[in-house]
């Protein structure tokens, strides 16, 4: 064990990976020592997930060497990596929706133990112990498919923790977590480090990165641009290395005093999810909604778009009341919705990028049944350009895009429809700082043009940077309202937690 | 001479089943006897459209004569019409309603054959009691004619017998016949007789009867072959079967085809030189033989197929 300083736990050297013409990784080298927390930073599509998949044995590099504890490895596969103590929390969680929480948590550990028989009680015990360690209260027997995105993420974290790992790789583990869970996770990482477990951490939330990591590695376009101790970086310098430019957030312009009321929600209620929700939104206003896990934000957001049928309440856009529980009517009324889980709810993964954007504009570009493909394409390309989607070929399937670019594709689809009101559920989930600022810029621009925007987010700086007003939800009720200009991150965090 | 060697394709409802394998023996015998290129083909699935497709291909291939056992006579009218228009001799079997054929060969009148089975069933039942009837499919014309003939005969001759239930459909499947027979036995506990139509019907019925130990209390008759129903005839679960020898029918069909090609005509009372067809009856285009065979435990050894 004492040799851990001399011999790194993981050494990567000259790893290159290309996908059908795209170079995702180009000659990347990296070492991780035992008990060390390394941050992998970089813009969307810079190759972070690809590197992780290679370490996990899911993808094979075209070139390059990988060593575990000084021993050079042949071609890896997930089983070999797992046997070497590499556990991954994947960006998309990679859970089993049909299995219980307990089984999902214990799955990797059971596989690693090479046991042939399966018994429930040890599985439950292990799961409960791990859940306790993370401090989450989840029914271990609930099927994972019934969980919210945040809870799924916690289960994925627990699964990795339940194994005797030597390296835990976390690919954006905090995207769906609220402040409180993130705290707990960071604590766990500290404890893991103390136990000699190494952590490779990917996140776009720079503050948390700098808080727990010793070393920072920055990728840009598949190349390593810099590597150094975390102490030498601050958020601004890190951003500069990732994007090659300075990114500044500016607060939103004030809403014009004469802006008409766009959306009125009165007494919207859904048993078990939210209760008696009343608020208004003016044209050009950006309204933030925040709350802890399970506070009912997502249900409320879906209800606004008709994806959830409320038990009662009234919703009007402009002068017209919108029928509840009907997404088509909501869309007709000019409401758009960007879902939080873009992979399953937002995107048609196997279809082209163009089609993914264009699908919202089919009616606008068809006459007498005929679709004007040229116009549809121009329209979509235009929006892709305006949102600076990094794609080699807009005819390529959208699944080949990085997470952040995928998110922009979903945004582009709705923006192309020219909505009056946009509900953004986690608009910058998994989006890098540069793009995030771009998206915030887009939101600002939309509000300037008189759109109403509702932003549901856990990212407090994001809320502060984009919103005129922020509603705080607790246990399904709106418990407070603050003006974006008049509050600070600490104050908001306090309101949420209390 | 070489040009006298004719291509005669016998096209059956479905290839491979016992019945048509036996028919193939007759066709081969005809080929051996006469030196013609006679052979038997059939689709892999029991579907009239598959038979149509096969016939289309044979016409395109340019055979000299077609001897057809239609799956569904109506469906074949257009294609057989095309065959005749192309100068191909066409004869059929088991399709008394067929229009586009030179001759249709019937081993017997279907209604008579049904009545013949009923006569045996009634005798066995002592002229009274409940009975049920089975057909391979409700869409099969011959099966329905047999059963209708039998029912009409019973109504006239044996008024004390009663038909229970509807025509039971077995989809030409022995397992289904077995299931249906069980169901009939449960629903009508007093049943004494059953008459089958598809060759697998009596085998399925026989198994159900045997398992319930009712061989002595019930009478089962139907169309089948000794190779299919043999073990139940032996155990007494099936009391008798009737059929006509498909080999002979196949032979006669091919002979008719050659006669048509040679421009010969068939006349009433003619002897076609094969057992059961020594003195045929001609009704329009339909040729009737007296070619049915009744088989029971005693004489089954004489029919090894």
């Amino acid at each position, binding site marked *: 064990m004492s040799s851990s300083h001399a011999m790194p736990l993981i050494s990567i050297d000259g790893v290159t990976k290309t996908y059908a013409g795209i170079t995702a990784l180009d000659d990347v080298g990296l070492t991780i020592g035992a008990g060390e927390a390394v941050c992998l930073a970089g813009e969307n599509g810079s190759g972070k997930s690809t590197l992780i998949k290679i370490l996990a044995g899911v993808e094979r590099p075209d070139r390059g060497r990988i060593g575990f504890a000084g021993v050079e490895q042949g071609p890896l596969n997930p089983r070999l990596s797992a046997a070497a103590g590499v556990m991954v929390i994947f960006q998309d969680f*990679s859970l089993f929706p049909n299995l219980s929480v307990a089984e999902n948590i214990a799955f990797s550990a059971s596989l690693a133990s090479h046991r042939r028989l399966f018994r429930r009680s040890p599985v439950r015990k292990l799961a409960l112990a791990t859940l306790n360690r993370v401090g989450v209260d989840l029914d271990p027997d609930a099927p994972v498919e019934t969980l919210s995105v945040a809870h799924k993420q916690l289960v994925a974290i627990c699964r990795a923790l339940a194994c005797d790992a030597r390296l835990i790789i976390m690919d954006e583990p905090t995207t769906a977590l609220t402040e409180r869970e993130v705290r707990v996770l960071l604590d766990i990482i500290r404890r893991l480090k103390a136990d000699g477990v190494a952590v490779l951490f990917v996140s776009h939330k720079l503050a948390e990165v700098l808080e727990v990591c010793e070393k920072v590695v920055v990728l840009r376009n598949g190349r390593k641009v810099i590597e150094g101790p975390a102490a030498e970086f601050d958020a601004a310098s890190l951003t500069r290395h990732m994007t090659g430019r300075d990114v500044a957030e500016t607060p939103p312009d004030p809403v014009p005093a004469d802006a008409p009321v766009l959306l009125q929600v009165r007494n919207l209620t859904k048993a078990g999810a939210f209760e008696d929700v009343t608020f208004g939104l003016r044209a050009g206003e950006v309204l933030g909604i925040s709350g802890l896990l399970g506070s009912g934000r997502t249900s409320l957001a879906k209800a606004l778009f008709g994806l959830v049928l409320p038990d009662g309440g009234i919703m009007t856009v402009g002068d017209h009341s919108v029928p509840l529980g009907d*997404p088509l009517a909501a869309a007709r009324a000019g409401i758009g919705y960007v879902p939080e889980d873009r992979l399953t709810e937002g995107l*048609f993964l*196997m279809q082209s990028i163009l089609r993914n954007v264009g*699908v919202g504009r089919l009616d606008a570009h068809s006459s007498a049944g005929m*679709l004007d493909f040229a116009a549809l394409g121009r329209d979509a390309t235009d929006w892709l350009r305006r949102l600076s989607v990094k794609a080699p070929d807009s005819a390529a399937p959208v699944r080949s895009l990085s997470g952040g670019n995928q998110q922009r594709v979903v945004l582009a689809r709705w923006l192309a429809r020219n909505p009056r009101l946009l509900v953004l559920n986690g608009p910058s989930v998994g989006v890098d700082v540069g793009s995030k600022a771009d998206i915030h810029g887009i939101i600002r621009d939309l509000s300037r043009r008189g759109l109403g925007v509702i932003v549901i987010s856990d990212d407090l700086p994001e809320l502060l940077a984009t919103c005129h007003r922020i509603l705080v939800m607790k246990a399904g009720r709106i418990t407070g309202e603050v003006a974006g200009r008049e509050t600070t991150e600490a104050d908001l965090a306090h309101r949420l937690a209390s | 001479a070489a040009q006298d060697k004719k291509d005669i394709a016998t096209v059956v409802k479905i290839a491979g089943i016992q019945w048509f394998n036996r028919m193939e023996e007759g066709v081969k015998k005809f080929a051996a006897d006469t030196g013609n290129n006679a052979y038997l083909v059939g689709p892999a699935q029991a579907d009239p459209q598959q038979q149509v497709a096969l016939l289309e291909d*044979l016409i395109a291939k340019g055979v000299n004569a077609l001897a057809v056992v239609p799956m*569904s006579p109506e469906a074949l009218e257009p294609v057989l019409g095309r065959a005749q228009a192309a100068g191909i001799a066409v004869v059929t079997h088991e399709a008394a309603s067929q229009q586009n054929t030179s001759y249709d060969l019937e081993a017997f009148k279907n209604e008579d054959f049904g009545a013949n089975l009923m006569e045996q069933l009634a005798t066995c039942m002592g002229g009274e009691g409940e009975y049920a009837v089975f057909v391979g499919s409700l869409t099969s014309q011959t099966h329905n004619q047999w059963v209708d003939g039998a029912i009409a005969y019973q109504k006239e001759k044996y008024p004390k017998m009663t038909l229970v239930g509807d025509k039971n459909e077995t989809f030409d499947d022995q397992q289904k016949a077995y299931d249906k027979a069980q169901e009939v036995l449960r629903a009508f506990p007093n049943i004494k007789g059953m008459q089958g139509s598809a060759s697998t019907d009596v085998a399925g019925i026989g198994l159900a009867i045997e398992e319930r130990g009712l061989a002595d209390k019930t009478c089962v008759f139907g169309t089948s072959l000794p190779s299919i129903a043999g073990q139940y005839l032996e155990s007494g679960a099936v009391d008798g079967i009737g059929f006509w020898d498909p080999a002979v029918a196949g032979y006669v069909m091919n002979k008719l085809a050659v006669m048509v090609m040679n421009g010969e005509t068939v006349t009433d009372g003619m002897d076609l030189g094969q057992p059961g067809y020594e003195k045929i009856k001609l009704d329009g285009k339909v040729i009737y033989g007296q070619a049915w065979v009744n088989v029971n435990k005693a004489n089954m050894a004489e029919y090894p197929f």
Partner: protein
Amino acid sequence: MRNLNLAALVASPEARLAVIAVVVFAVMSALSPDRFLSVQNLTSMAFQFPEFAILSLAMLLTMLTGGIDLSVVGIANLSAIVAALLLTAFAGPEATGGAAVLWLAVALLAALAVGAVAGLFNGVAIAVFGLPPILATLGSGLIFTGIAVALTGGSALMGFPGVVAFLGNGTVLGVPAPLILFALLAAGMAWLLGRTAFGLRVQMYGANPLAARFAAMDVTGLLIRVYLLSGMLGALAGMVVMSRANSAKADYGSSYLLLAVLIAVLGGVNPYGGYGRVIGVVLAVLTMQFLSSGLNMLGVSNFARELIWGGLLIFVMIVNTRLVYRPRAAAKPGPSA
């Protein structure tokens, strides 16, 4: 739109299928040149395949949404029987001229209406009540066939005016009428799928039904229309069968169901939805017909044909997945949910 270069052309599954179709045609021609290549045989083939080819189009459409229509043959027969009932009741074999044509048109419309209603039934069961398509159409297929049997007592209906035969047996300028009908339908389907918003929606829905809902697509209406169209295609196939058989019966074409599924799959349609092209289905139909007629010419047992068929399907799939890198077309795309 991108330029189609040669490499891209050969990279598409349809192009490989075209190669296979040509190879099969060449092999059959070589094995029995005088018979297979005869005008007789070529026209005969052109008369044969439209029946099941139309059903394959219906299969393509429903499979694109990730569904399937196992009731098409039932619909075909039920529609044909309704048409036949009308024809036999109002225009017997004696009917000629304008009256006969008129009644044929009425019968055709009636058949299409029956197909539409049956398809609507499927669509509502699937889209509104949420039944899995495979079971909904398995069940409804039994019902349609059952009604057809009940309407006719199981026997065939016949005695139509002479014009009825035209649809399945006639020619226009030497081209078989059923082939023309199929060509029109195929072209229409290609247009529908490739050039209309409806077609694009069908493909998008098949790719990810949940995302379609989140994109404010009218998925209920879409599915209903898909099955309605499928039912109407079934009705048209039924009319062709009726015309070619000059009769209608509840059990015609029972072997076409599996055949239509096989052809769609061979034609490159992803049975889990989202991908499928008309040209692929047409090529698969042709391959199938060349193979089938060719083997009949050669006197090969029809059972060996089944064997070759299954083998061909798997061979094509291996070529498709081995030759080109294609991301796994899984039923549920990647992530945890």
